[in-house]
């Protein structure tokens, strides 16, 4: 009996034909409250838009307000596999390294000399390519320096289509994250990349070859002025070729930037100013 009462109570709550109430409210009551909330939320949305608009007006178009989190730029390697920083392949199995080659092909396509010549300027090397605005007059668009694929030489993929993967001497390309206005060096000394094995693997890494020589990022590619002002900016690259790395073993490698104007990143961030990855080349021989 109690259940029946409850049931009809529920039914009545959903639709009460006597008072014409749906969920405890009449149509006009629903209308009023919904109208109120509609108006209220439109008002709030308007207000939010207004404050957001005001906030966006205070921003600079070319440089973010704060860059303190980017004081040590991140470093990234290519080719990059899905989730992990691991390059593992089998020399005899073409399919296992072909994807790396393809990824590098794709990554280096914008660095083709023809593309670079078309879009970018030749700059004076070994000095910053400063294009400052003079007061309120913006010096835009800003020009960018060429970074020709050929600079990477053996790792450019031009002569060696498979970047050395096929004979167990793979190339890894390293880039430094773009940070607007960053000047990586104080006194004309170009920052350079060094790679080394982690402690226990130090005897397995073998000989390394850097392109450009010494693994430098030429100063002429700095500073970066942001994607709006410097549309065609080509990020400088450093390639590392592992000439005789021990096969069939995990080799943990860490590359780091050496620059006198870049603070050493926090311990927590494994990718600021350095990059670690694992290389394992399997071979039957």
């Amino acid at each position, binding site marked *: 009996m109690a259940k029946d009462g409850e049931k009809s109570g529920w039914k009545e709550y959903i639709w009460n034909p006597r008072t014409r109430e749906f969920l405890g409210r009449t149509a006009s009551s629903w209308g009023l409250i919904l109208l109120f909330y509609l108006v209220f939320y439109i008002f709030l949305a308007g207000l939010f838009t207004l404050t957001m608009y005001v906030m966006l007006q205070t921003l600079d178009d070319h440089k973010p307000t704060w860059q303190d989190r980017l004081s040590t730029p991140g470093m990234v390697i290519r080719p990059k596999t899905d989730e992990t920083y691991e390059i593992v392949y089998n020399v005899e199995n073409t399919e296992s390294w072909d994807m790396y080659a393809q990824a590098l092909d794709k990554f280096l396509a914008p660095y083709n000399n023809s593309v670079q010549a078309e879009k970018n300027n030749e700059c004076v090397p070994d000095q910053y390519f400063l294009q400052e605005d003079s007061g309120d007059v913006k010096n835009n668009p800003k020009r960018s320096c060429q970074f020709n694929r050929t600079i990477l030489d053996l790792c450019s993929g031009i002569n060696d289509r498979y970047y050395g993967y096929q004979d167990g001497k793979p190339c890894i390309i390293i880039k430094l*994250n773009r940070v607007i206005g960053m000047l990586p060096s104080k006194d004309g000394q170009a920052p350079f990349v060094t790679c080394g094995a982690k402690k226990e693997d130090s005897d397995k890494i073998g000989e390394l070859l850097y392109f450009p020589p010494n693994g430098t990022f030429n100063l002429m590619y700095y500073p*970066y002025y942001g994607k*709006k002002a410097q549309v065609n900016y080509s990020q400088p690259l450093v390639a590392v070729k592992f000439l005789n790395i021990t096969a069939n073993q995990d080799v943990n490698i860490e590359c780091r930037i050496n620059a006198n104007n870049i603070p050493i990143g*926090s311990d927590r961030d494994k*990718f600021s100013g350095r990059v670690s990855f694992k290389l394992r080349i399997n071979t039957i021989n």
Partner: protein
Amino acid sequence: MGADRSPKKKKGGTKDMDDLKKEVPITEHKMSIEEVCRKFNTDIVQGLTNAKAAEYLIRDGPNALTPPPTTPEWVKFCRQLFGGFSILLWTGAILCFLAYAIQAATEDEPAGDNLYLGIVLTAVVVITGCFSYFQEAKSSKIMESFKNMVPQQALVIREGEKVTINAEEVVGGDLIEVKGGDRIPADIRVVSAHGCKVDNSSLTGESEPQSRSPDCTHDNPLETRNVAFFSTNCVEGTARGIVICTGDRTVMGRIATLTSGLETGKTPIAKEIEHFIHIITGVAVFLGVTFFILAIILGYSWLEAVIFLIGIIVANVPEGLLATVTVCLTLTAKRMAKKNCLVKNLEAVETLGSTSTICSDKTGTLTQNRMTVAHMWFDNQIHEADTTEDQSGASFDKSSVTWLSLARVAGLCNRAQFKAGQDSLPILKRDVAGDASESALLKCIELSCGSVRAMRDRNKKVAEIPFNSTNKYQLSVHETEDPNDNRYLLVMKGAPERILDRCTTILVQGKEQPMDEELKEAFQNAYMELGGLGERVLGFCHVLLPEDQYPKGFAFDTEDVNFQTDNLCFVGLMSMIDPPRAAVPDAVIMVTGDHPITAKAIAKGVGIISEGNETVEDIAARLNIPVSQVNPRDAKACVVHGTDLKDLSQDQMDDILRNHTEIVFARTSPQQKLIIVEGCQRLGAIVAVTGDGVNDSPALKKADIGVAMGISGSDVSKQAADMILLDDNFASIVTGVEEGRLIFDNLKKSIAYTLTSNIPEITPFLFFIIVNIPLPLGTITILCIDLGTDMVPAISLAYETAESDIMKRQPRNPARDKLVNERLISIAYGQIGMIQALGGFFAYFVILAENGFLPSRLVGIRLNWDDRSTNDLEDSYGQQWTYEQRKIVEFTCHTAFFVSIVVVQWADVIICKTRRNSVFQQGMRNKILIFGLFEETALAAFLSYCPGMDVALRMYPLKPSWWFCAFPYSFLIFVYDEIRKLLLRRNPGGWVERETYY
């Protein structure tokens, strides 16, 4: 009386209880001593034989009360741990663990959030559970009852020898002896007594010692003189009696068994919290399911959607609220304890405030308990008493001989006296030792005739019979003022009709005249008129005892009255009024031992029966028709006589309670209280019962809140009650009502405050799912709000003063006036919470934009953003970010969102101070709240700036400007709510009130 005469209890629950509710089935008092001896096979001189005693002991068991089934401590603890609100948190915790389990099973590196949240939820429940367990343990430890009532030793006569045995070994039929100072070891039928007096106060509440003798003086075993009851005290004299009942079969044992067997319902606040949980669960499930469906539509996998579902449901759980509610109740309990109201059960703190029906036999509950003399009747005329300090308002001739006689009787036949050291105080303000009506008389006589003490010194008291409920009078015998007059003056006061019965003459204009019918009618009219004013009327008479019969030095025996107590001379009436309290709840049911006429009058006086409402009898009298012809539905008010109540069926009882708004039960026995309480509860009322006797304890236990007296109350009644008035001052009940209502209002505010921040806590997660932005607010920061910054302000609202005179309000209707209703949710979630969320989101967008991620870049960024291997994520300016770099920004956003919630919660706590008034009317006098504002801000700053927080809680220092992001929204909240409350006040009952007044 003794409707059920079966001496043994029946087996089986309800039948047993019904049996116990009936009145005492003792019949031995009506038997002759020989019959009793025969019944128990005992001997009036020799007592039982040892063999018989042993046999009876085996048959009946020891003479001890079965201790009430005490709940083991761990059960009490579990009740705290799993009761009410905790269930919600437990569910949340289990869901969290479930979600974590799913994640752990499906992902390589499961995010620890759900695990931590589950652990924190568990910790919160356990800690608050422990807290309230210890709180209650502290209060309930104060009373330890039944065991102490069992007397340790008893003097029995067995086989003609007096032996002292352990009282537990006393059996029915034992011949025992008690003397002054002893506790009666069992219910005994007195066979001989020498000046024996017992104090029955623990059983009946009557404080005057009553004499015991072998004669049956009353049909009712409770009132007859030849039965002494288990656990009452023998005050003086000695008595010998045969044990007729032992252990649980004694009167006390029956009541104790009845009391401990009664089921008590949930407290109103527990019901409110249950309702609140329903609402919260409803909202949580609704949101969860909605976003589950959305997530599926948006292409998330089933498992992800389930994780979201759980996340949303758990996010709705207000983690801090359980602690807040517990602390608020504790604070109120402490505040009440300071005012001598000890609350045994935390949840009962609020109950008194919701009480819609008070069943009280003490009119002191309903009135100010400041009795003053209002009228007098003498010389066949009603005079108004002069209560001014300088006697300027005299309305009658003070030199009248009758008045002087009346004043003398009132002053002499009076045991009240001023407490010492108050001579400088005005008479009306002095403290008096004595009961209320005697104090009133004392003050009145002191005012108009000067020192009563001097009068008493001149008329030395030689004998006195104090007032008791059987005599209904008080008398004393004095020497006369005139040293040459050796006669004694007998003065008497008491219930007017009883006094009149004892008078044959009446003093008119100083002359004694025979009492004729005409004067009797004049008396009746005056009595009715004064009674009708709601005043307590006392009659006064005196007589000068003839010297030949009562020579100087005559030994007046007040025990066996050996002097004349009739053929007295009636002097006059005095009536006293106890001004009603303004705060009497509307539906007070008066349950009183008073006469129906007096009860009705008092009820009218204190507004229990309001003006213009009539009882059936009133209608009958007005229309001049017999009572039977009046339609009972016409009468709103009703006076039920206790003897009628006995014959009413449950339906008739319900009918009376339902169809009359104003009811007075007169001449009710305390047992009938239980029936009345049950009746009221059946009709949905929240019932408070006051009482002090053991007989009251079933009603006290059954009531939603039982109020026992701390000093005069028996241990059993204190055990059964939820609240104890430590100083026996009924004014404390009003304190209780006030505090209860205040805490109910303030809990609403506290909950409104706490719930509001739920929206800015949930919406980030929703947007994270729906538009794939980086998470704006993390689990840790949510917990920092709920269990950190929100706590003190939420608790501080418990210190908020009332907005209006809460005592003038109707008691809340538990069916309509809920602690948390849809309007509160609408305001907290739909309006204020939304503004708060916008404030938080604004801070979030500001930080990301200032760091390079404009809002347009954020939408849809989530997958890359949360990908650990993407370390060159591009922002709006073309810069590239490592995972850790952008996570630091994200956590800075969490911190800023958290700080923004603190900022908008400033405004929220200020608007929650009032529900109707403007903050400007209410003021900012709540120091705890101001402390709370500073405390939460300091805590937020600490969490943001303290070194090491980045590692410990992943909270980062904010740029000073980011603190101000939410300021406009905080201001908006304040202005919006002030406008809302302004509209609310301007249009009472208008749309704003109907939709937003919580």
